């Protein structure tokens, strides 16, 4: 059995099923209760599962994560929601110093089976503080897993895997894909393993690595390039930012001989840098073209006004141009 769903509904339904299946699972965050979350991801949850399991927290992200860590240390499986990824910064210390280090520092004695969900990304008129990418910060934190589903299918499978994972998982949901991206979601209880990247489109001439909203722009650009110029682009969905699946990326690059990486975060020191560096170190001699990065400009964040936001966001045209150029090299 399958159903066509968008990503918000998929996450809503998956969380609902997980709550039904295991009462160790509970949800905490700002406005997750009566309001059902500002994106309606937990709509109806409080009525169904009660205030004890669907906790409207005080406006304090550090304690949302810190309290969730405590719950995870005492037998529960908390799923914390940070209302916007931009507001996770006050919890940086609890995530980096505590969640990510508890197992390591206790030599394996303690673990923190916690999921922290955060809607991220731009192109939604959210301005400087409702548009940010944060995977560059958290991907660099050993002990923390960072996943970014880009399709409804992966959203369900990765969320189930994240809730079952014995370690802390930062689960990033791109806001613009929430309702924009629809797809088939199997009814059965499957998991998409945390770790493996996924080839979302097979190709021979060029490898394009991306995740989040940009993955869809890359698929759009790849289709256009196939159509118009007969160039076949392989599009790899990173899917798990950390730990990074180097093998899948390198296999694709070795096959096509050309690689580009696309991400919407500020370009410099962003996640794409590690991917490019990995390819350069491991597969440079398999390349017959330059390594190309398409990323957001190095400005503090995405401005509000339409023209400024549009200036910030990489789009399918820009990606198509870069692909075409690289293919022609």
């Amino acid at each position: 059995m399958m159903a066509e769903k968008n990503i918000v509904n998929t996450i809503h339904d998956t969380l609902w099923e997980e709550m039904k299946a295991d009462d160790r699972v509970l949800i905490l965050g700002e406005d997750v209760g009566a309001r059902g979350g500002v994106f309606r991801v937990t709509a109806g949850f409080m009525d169904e599962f009660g205030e004890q399991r669907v906790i409207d927290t005080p406006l304090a992200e550090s304690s949302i994560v810190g309290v969730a860590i405590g719950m995870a240390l005492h037998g529960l499986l908390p799923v914390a929601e940070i209302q916007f990824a931009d507001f996770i910064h006050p919890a940086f210390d609890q995530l980096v110093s505590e969640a990510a280090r508890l197992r390591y520092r206790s030599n394996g004695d303690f673990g923190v089976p916690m999921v922290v969900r955060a809607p991220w990304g731009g192109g939604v008129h959210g301005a400087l503080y409702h548009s940010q990418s944060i995977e560059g910060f958290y991907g660099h934190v050993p002990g923390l897993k960072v996943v970014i589903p880009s399709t409804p299918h992966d959203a369900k499978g990765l969320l189930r895997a994240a809730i079952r994972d014995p370690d802390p998982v930062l689960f990033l949901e791109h806001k613009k894909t929430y309702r924009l991206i629809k797809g088939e979601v199997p009814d059965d209880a499957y998991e998409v393993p945390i770790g493996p990247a996924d080839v979302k489109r097979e190709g021979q001439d060029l490898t394009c690595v991306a995740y989040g909203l940009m993955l869809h722009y890359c698929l759009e650009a790849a289709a256009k390039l196939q159509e118009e110029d007969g160039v076949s682009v392989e599009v790899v969905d990173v899917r798990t930012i950390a730990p990074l699946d180097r093998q899948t990326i390198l296999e694709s690059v070795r096959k096509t001989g050309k690689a580009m990486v696309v991400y919407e975060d500020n370009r410099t020191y962003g996640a794409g840098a590690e991917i490019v560096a990995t390819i350069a170190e491991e597969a440079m001699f398999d390349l017959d073209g330059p390594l190309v990065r398409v990323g957001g400009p190095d400005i503090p964040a995405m401005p509000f006004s339409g023209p400024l936001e549009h200036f910030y966001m990489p789009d399918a045209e820009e990606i198509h141009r870069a692909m075409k150029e690289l293919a022609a090299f």
Partner: protein
Amino acid sequence: MSQRVKEAADRHSPLGLTEDDLRRMYRTMVTARLCDEAQFRLNRQGRAPFVVPVSGHEGCQVATAWPLTRGKDIFVPYYRDMAVCLVAGMTPKDVFLGVFGKADDPSSGGRQMPAHWGSRRLGIISGSSPIATQVPHASGIAYAMKYRGEDAVVASWFGDGATSEGDWHEALNFAGIHKLPVVFVCENNLYAISVPLSKQAGISELALRAEGYGFSGQTVDGNDAFACYEAMKAAVDRARDGGGPTLIECMTYRFHPHTSDDDDRTYRTREEVEEAKRKDALVIFGGYLKDVGLIDDDGIESLRAELKAEVDAAVDEAWNAADPDPESALRHVFAEES
């Protein structure tokens, strides 16, 4: 007898408020209300993608901003504070340049969401979206004022939800230790978006926390502009005289959803909202002006009409103003060589 009544009725003179003060305070409250009505109209028309309402807070905002001295004291508001910023010197046109994200938006040149106020010229510190981050800035500014021997005061405004953030605690603690010239104003509207006060704190009067920082706190009726003014005036004078910080909590209510993106019917009954609107500070303050003979119903009507014309004109001017140049997105990451 009528004499006694008049005296009993006079609440402003004892506070040092002149009739001119009353007129200008009322004008500002009404202007804020009209800007709010206009921005929601624009939002419904699809001309303003996102707006942040002030309605319900105008009374306590104008009354708590009033005791500050423009050009000397510093305002550290949050997004809800349109009326605070009007007192500080912003105009309806400034408000709508922000709403439309235009190049001449004084707060951010269209970079930030509407209602993210700021202006060095007006002494309004640029605010962000993250809640409570501005409160430590107020403490730092107050430290600088004291360090430089200025006879100035800084005030920071925030909501009830903000009091839960670690930054809020750290800011008040620092201010208390150094007895800084700062006034912390909490606009307690009983909700942080949908989260009710009972889930925000284990107490019902947040002003209580001031004692834990070594200074005094006071909870006042936010719909009673005179009560707000009196508390704020005393706090500002005390701060200026080296008496240290004060936490003032104004019990108020937000008439509209949190923002144009919110649907408050999921967490507030209509009855509760209607009940609150019956205590509208704007109506109460207008009523007082009538009682003391400063205005009558016709006067209120014509004032509304006059100000509405101003606001409508501001909307049109702002709407017709230029958008930022796309390339300008690259500017001001760091200081530019001048």
